[in-house]
C-alpha cells in the first residue's frame, strides 16, 4: 500500500488540527491558567478592574517587585501547613489502594474461578452499592462513628473509602481474571501448585496490567474524594481536597484564596506525573484485558 492512500485532503487535515487545538485548549487551558495565576496575588488573578492583570501581574509587581511570587505556596505550605494534608492524602491513598487491591484480587480471582451461580448475584449486589450516591452511605455511617468515637480519624476515612471503592475493584478485577484461561490454573495445579500458589506464581504475573489499571482507579477515587473526607475527617486530619475547600471558605482575608489556588496546583501536579508514568499499562490494561494464554 502506498502512503498516498493514507494522505487526507488538505481541508480535512486543517479541520482536524483546528479541532485538536480547540479541544486541547478546552481541556488543558484551565490547568495552565491556574498554574500561571498561582504565582500572582489575589488582586491580579481575580482582578475585577482589568483581566489582563492576571497575565501581566501588575499588582504582584507593585507588592513584591516581581511579576511572580510564591506567596500563595508559602501561605499554604508554611503558614497553613498544607504539607500535613499532603501526607494525610498519601496515607489515605496508599492504604485504600493496598486494601482494595488485596481484597479485590483475592475476591475477583475467587469469583472468576467459582462455578456457582451466586457469583453473578454477588456482583450485581456489588454494582448496586457502587451505584448508590456516596453521601447516602456516609450519612448512614456518621451516627455510628460518633457513637463509637471513631469520627475524625484517618483509618475511619480509609475504611469508608475502601467500602465505597471495593465493588468497583471487584468488578474490574473479576473481568480481568475471567479473561485469563482456566487452563493456566489447571496446568499450574497439575505441575504441583496449590490453588494459592497458582494464583501467586502463574495468574498474578499475567495480571499486572489489570492490577495496575484497577489500582490507579482506586488511587484516583481516594485522591479526589471530597464527600467522605470532608464529612468524616476532623480539621487536624484533613486530606488535600477538603483542605482546599476550607481555604476557599475563608476568603474574607485577602490572599487566602491564593492558598487554595496554590494548593490546587500542588494537588494536580502529582496526578499528571502518575498518569504519564503509567499510561502504557493503563492503555494495555483497558484495551487488551490480559495476555493471551
Amino acid at each position, binding site marked *: 500500500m502506498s502512503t498516498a492512500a493514507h494522505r487526507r485532503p488538505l481541508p480535512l487535515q486543517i479541520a482536524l488540527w483546528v479541532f485538536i487545538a480547540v479541544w486541547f485548549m478546552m481541556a488543558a487551558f484551565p490547568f495552565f491558567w491556574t498554574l500561571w495565576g498561582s504565582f500572582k496575588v489575589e488582586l491580579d488573578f481575580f482582578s475585577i478592574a482589568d483581566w489582563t492583570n492576571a497575565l501581566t501581574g501588575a499588582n504582584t509587581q507593585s507588592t513584591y517587585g516581581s511579576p511572580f511570587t510564591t506567596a500563595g505556596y508559602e501561605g499554604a505550605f508554611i503558614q497553613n501547613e498544607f504539607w500535613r494534608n499532603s501526607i494525610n492524602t498519601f496515607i489515605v491513598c496508599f492504604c485504600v489502594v493496598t486494601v482494595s487491591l488485596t481484597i479485590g484480587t483475592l475476591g475477583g480471582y475467587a469469583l472468576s474461578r467459582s462455578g456457582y451461580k451466586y457469583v453473578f448475584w454477588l456482583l450485581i449486589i456489588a454494582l448496586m452499592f457502587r451505584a448508590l450516591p456516596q453521601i447516602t452511605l456516609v450519612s448512614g455511617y456518621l451516627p455510628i462513628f460518633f457513637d463509637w468515637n471513631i469520627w475524625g480519624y484517618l483509618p475511619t476515612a480509609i475504611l469508608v473509602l475502601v467500602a465505597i471503592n471495593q465493588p468497583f475493584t471487584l468488578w474490574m478485577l473479576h473481568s480481568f481474571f475471567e479473561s485469563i484461561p482456566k487452563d493456566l490454573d*489447571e*496446568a499450574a495445579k497439575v505441575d*504441583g501448585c496449590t490453588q494459592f500458589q497458582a494464583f501467586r506464581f502463574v495468574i498474578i504475573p499475567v495480571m499486572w496490567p489489570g492490577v495496575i489499571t484497577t489500582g490507579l482507579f482506586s488511587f484516583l477515587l481516594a485522591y479526589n474524594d471530597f464527600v467522605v473526607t470532608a464529612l468524616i475527617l476532623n480539621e487536624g486530619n484533613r486530606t488535600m481536597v477538603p483542605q482546599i475547600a476550607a481555604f476557599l471558605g475563608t476568603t474574607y482575608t485577602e490572599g487566602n484564596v491564593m492558598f487554595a489556588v496554590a494548593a490546587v496546583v500542588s494537588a494536580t501536579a502529582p496526578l499528571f506525573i502518575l498518569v504519564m508514568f503509567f499510561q502504557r499499562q493503563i492503555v494495555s490494561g483497558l484495551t487488551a484485558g490480559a495476555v493471551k494464554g
Partner: protein
Amino acid sequence: MAEIVLKNVCKRWGSFIGVDDFDLTIADQEFLVLLGPSGCGKTTTMRMIAGLETPTSGDILIDGERVNDLEPKDRDISMVFQSYGLYPNMNVYENIRFPLKVRKVPAAEHDERVKKAAAMVELEPFMHRKPAALSGGQRQRVALARAIVREPNVFLMDEPLSNLDAKLRVSTRAQIKNLSHELKVTTIYVTHDQIEAMTLADRVVVMSKGIVQQVGTPTDIYDNPANTFVASFIGSPAMNLVDGTMSGGTFTCEGMSISGFSAPDGKVTLGFRAEDAQVVDTGGELNARVYSMELLGDATMVTVRCGGALVSVKAGKEYRSNIGDDVSITVPSSICHLFDAESGERLTG
C-alpha cells in the same frame, strides 16, 4: 509403577450424566486411549484422574491408593492440555522448569533435567523465547517437555494434537509414541481422532454419551466392534451398515442378498468394511448403480446406494466407472458383522 483403577466412576451435573459407571483397570506402562466424539465424557474421565474434577461417585485408585480426595499436585501425574496451558510470562526454559521449582526439587538438578527434557523434544534452540514467539508445534513440544521433566508416574494428554496441522500431527504422534515407550510411563490419551487412537494405543476405550462402548486392543476394536456405534466410529471409511431382514440364514435388503448366516430370523443391521468387499464384473451379492467414485491414490472408492444407506467399497487403483453405471460387489457372509437392529449390539462372535 503406576496402575490406575477406576471403580464405577460417575460424574453428574444435576441430571446431566457426564460419565456413567466407568470401570477399568489401566495396567502399569500401558498406553490407553480414550476415544469418542465430543461430549462423550472422555475428557471428563481424564480430568477426574488428574483431580481437576471430583467424581460424583466411585473410586479412583493410583497404585492401590484411593486418590479421590487428593489435590492434583499430590497425585504424581502430569498433563498436556489441549490449549497447552503454557505460562505466557515465562520463557521456554522457565516453563519447563516450573514443575521442578514448585515441587522443591533441589536447584542443582534443575538445569540438567530441563535440558534433558528439552532435548527429548528438540527444543534447545528456543530456550529463551516466550510462548507467544513460538509456533503451534513448538508450544506443543514445550507442553510435552514440561510434562516429562518431572518424570511422573502417569501422563495425561488431552487432545494434544488437535491444534496442529495435518503434517505436524503425524510427526508429533510418532514422537509421543516414542516418548511414552522410552519413559515407561502409564499414559492416558484423549482424542476424537480414531487414527490417533489406532496408531498410539495399547488399548482403546471407545465412549459415547458418557458410557463405555468397548474396551480392547486397536485390532480387537477394528475387527470385532461391539456395537454399531463402535463400527461406525472406527476405520476410515467407517464400516458400512445396512438395515435388512434375516430369514432362514439369508440376509436381504433392497439391492443385496447374502446367504450362509446361522442367525435367528428377524430385523438385523449388517456391517462390512470397505476393503473386505470386492467389485466384480457380475454375480456379486450386491448389485446397484454407482452413486459416486473417489480416487484415493492407492485405491478407488466406489459408493453405491443399498438398503437405504450409502455403502462404500474399495476397488483396485486402476478401477474406473461412471456415476450411474451398474456395478456388482461380492459381500460373502464371512466378512459380515451382524448387529441387533434395535439395540445395535453385536449378534455374532
